[in-house]
């Protein structure tokens, strides 16, 4: 594979290599998928923070996540938002991406030229992640998970109200509410939405990542770790599990349950019916259609690289509205498999 793709300026600070997104003058990679010497990590999700890098640089709030996921022994350095370090003459700084705790856009400046790799981001303020900061730049790398005009999220307060009403309705019918959401980011948003409504019983995988929030000093509602072997959930309990637990024996041990899937894909009726859950809440840690456009326009970038998601569609649309864009292939997310909520990290 050539590291040069059509539509990319020769003056670009970035190259798209088999190992990942490469900063040429800085000689480092951003969220690489193959082992490299030096990696800058946008956030702790497993498709962005992978095994085997010689050295990791990420936001201080991502450090505990990386250690929980990749092991205590990794060589990792944390940075605050806005702090600048020099890597081979490139000024590198991290800026909030609003995606999950510690998620960052990587700003790279070299000889007056600025590139920003944003990883995953969202515009909605979920009350847990530091809200996104729009960074002016020449080149911007954007995700495109929900880059279709059908994806527009309702305000957070409204989402929370809908979820709370659903829990109360279930209770009236004597059912225990079970929420399904990704263990890092989504699960904590669900917890926040349901705070005070009952005892939150979270799966072990979620509890493990909750510790990262605790270490980062982000207050979460009180919760207990779910253990269906020793006790059955009570009527007032609310269960939260990661997507891998759907259709599992563990869930089947909860009688009278109603399941809700929390994922941006749930915006579409077909996806809701496919999952055959009792409810689907379109809640995502990714930007919706308008969010993507607002951020991209806000950066003022003259060149946009479109990664993971609706790459072809978004590339075409951006070019049509006068923003030079090129689709690039990465190993983030999973391409072209809508309806699979697990990819809505």
């Amino acid at each position, binding site marked *: 594979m050539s590291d040069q793709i059509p539509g990319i300026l020769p003056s670009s600070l970035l190259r798209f290599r088999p190992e990942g997104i490469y900063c040429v003058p800085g000689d480092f990679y951003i969220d690489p998928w193959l082992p490299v010497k030096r990696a800058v990590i946008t956030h702790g999700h497993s498709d962005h923070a992978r095994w085997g890098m010689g050295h990791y640089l990420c936001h201080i709030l991502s450090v505990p996540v990386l250690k929980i996921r990749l092991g205590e022994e990794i060589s990792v350095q944390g940075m605050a938002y806005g702090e600048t370090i020099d890597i081979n003459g490139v000024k590198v700084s991290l800026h909030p991406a609003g995606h999950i705790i510690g998620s960052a856009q990587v700003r790279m400046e070299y000889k007056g030229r600025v590139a920003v790799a944003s990883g995953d981001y969202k515009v909605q303020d979920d009350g847990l992640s530091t809200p996104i900061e729009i960074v002016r730049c020449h080149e911007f790398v954007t995700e495109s998970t929900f880059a279709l005009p059908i994806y527009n999220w309702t305000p957070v307060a409204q989402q929370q109200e809908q979820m709370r009403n659903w829990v109360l309705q279930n209770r009236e019918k004597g059912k225990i509410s079970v929420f399904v959401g990704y263990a890092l980011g989504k699960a904590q948003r669900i917890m926040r939405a349901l705070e005070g409504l009952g005892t939150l019983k979270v799966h072990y995988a979620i509890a493990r990542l909750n510790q990262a929030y605790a270490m980062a000093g982000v207050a979460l509602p009180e919760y207990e770790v779910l253990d269906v072997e020793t006790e059955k959930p009570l009527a007032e309990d609310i269960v939260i599990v990661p997507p891998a637990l759907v259709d599992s024996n563990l869930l089947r041990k909860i009688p009278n349950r109603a399941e809700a899937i929390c994922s941006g894909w749930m915006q579409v009726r*077909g996806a809701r019916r496919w999952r055959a859950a009792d409810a689907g809440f379109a809640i995502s840690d990714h930007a919706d259609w308008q969010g993507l456009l607002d951020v991209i326009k806000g950066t003022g970038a003259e060149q946009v690289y479109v990664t993971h998601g609706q790459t072809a569609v978004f590339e075409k649309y951006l070019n049509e509205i006068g923003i030079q864009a090129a689709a690039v292939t990465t190993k983030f997310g999973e391409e072209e498999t809508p309806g699979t909520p697990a990819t809505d990290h």
Partner: protein
Amino acid sequence: MKEFATLISALDSTNKTGLKQEAIINFLDTAPDEDKLWFLALFTGKRPRRKVSTALMKQWAMEISGIPEWLFRESYSSVGDLGETISLVLPEPVHSRDQSLALWMQQIIALDKKTEEEKKQFVLDAWQRLDHTQRFIFNKLLGGSFRVGIAAKGLINAIATYYKLEANVVAHTLMGDWQLEGVTFDALIRGEYIESHRSRPYPFCLAYALDKELPELGAVTDWQAEYKWDGIRAQLIKREGEVFIWSRGEELITDQFPEIRDTLLQWEGNFVMDGELLVFRENVVQNFSELQKRLNRKNLSRKMLEEFPVVLFAYDLLEWETEDWRQKPLWERRRKLETLCAAHSDYTIQLSPVVPLADWQELPGIRERARELNSEGIMLKHKHSPYHSGRKRGDWWKWKADPLTLDAVLIYAQKGSGRRSGYYTDYTFAVKSGDELVTIAKAYSGLTDKEIQEVSRFVNNNAIEKFGPVRTVKPELVFELAFEGISLSSRHKSGVALRFPRILRWRRDKTVKDIDDIEDIKQLIQ
């Protein structure tokens, strides 16, 4: 309309019968009567015709949301439903005021007399007021394509349970020829209108597939065996000098079978019969494909009628001289039916022959040879059985002949719609024709959700070409297809047409080298 929207969302989001019932009962509990009536009307297909073309709706939606047509199409292909795509691309509603489903329907019906500009004003105003779910429903109602995601049986049972009525009465009413005008919901479900309708059919009695050993059924002498014919199951009504022919799909098909209608008009008495419409030539029942050739034609020419002569094979008698005979035992109904047919001895209306059976051991052989008579297999009916409403376990069994099968390779895939809009679910298969591949059939069902996900992944990774929504894939995945019949066809490239093709199983053990050749397949044609 919010109760109705809640109902539709609930029906959508579950495939559990119990939860669907719960949703209907909740709706019956909360919705105004006029909306309940409309729900039944929509359910039974009494929806107004399309008032606004989908092209216009799409155009207005693009205008408001400011997106280009290609992007709208991309969105549509992701959603799989036009009404829903429109509801999602529009901006959030600015104000909301709930109004009943009945009022919406009234306004939609009134659009007939409006100009295009007035229609646009109405639609745009509605879009501004409704949330996503209600917008989606509104769009479907407007486009005349609204469907309710529940089986008739489930709905009938829910209504019967809630109002403490007999399911039979409810079923009878709903299936009848009622109109919305001058009807109240309460009187309707209590069956107060059905007497005035001469055309009313009874619900068909249906059989379950035999799932036990024959001796478990008891004495062979208690059972009546018949061939299961592969034509159009029909109910024939003659009351007060008028004839009505209903299909199992609750459609009136009287005009499609003038020879049957005219014969029945000659018959004396008032009665309701159950039977099968079949093309019958030189005393032989013909393949279903022959019947298909004269279905749904605007004009049935004399030539058509001569070339594809239809007869009725009578199965059962449901009503005689205004008396409902369905609770009488089968042997008694059959005896009366035999007398009735014997009294007229018409070629056009014949008794479906009973298969004489002295011992269960004879039946498997008869079933295996059923295909030679263009029959699908065997029906077993208990001689003391009533004529049930719908499917009831125990009295009637169908024992179909094993399907015909062939091995074919997947060559095209297309994404599904509705529940399966995210996955490739519609497949086209090919078999060998010498060294080449030739398309043999399309099939939509037969795989599990998990297998569909796996095939979708394969399609994503192995797509060769893209024609609109269709992907050409590397011919690699082999499937065993089952089908009920095969006939020569000049319309198909392969030269043959399959009846009811479906995927029997994924043959992971086979490669494209192992698939069948079209010349061998043609040998199956009788």
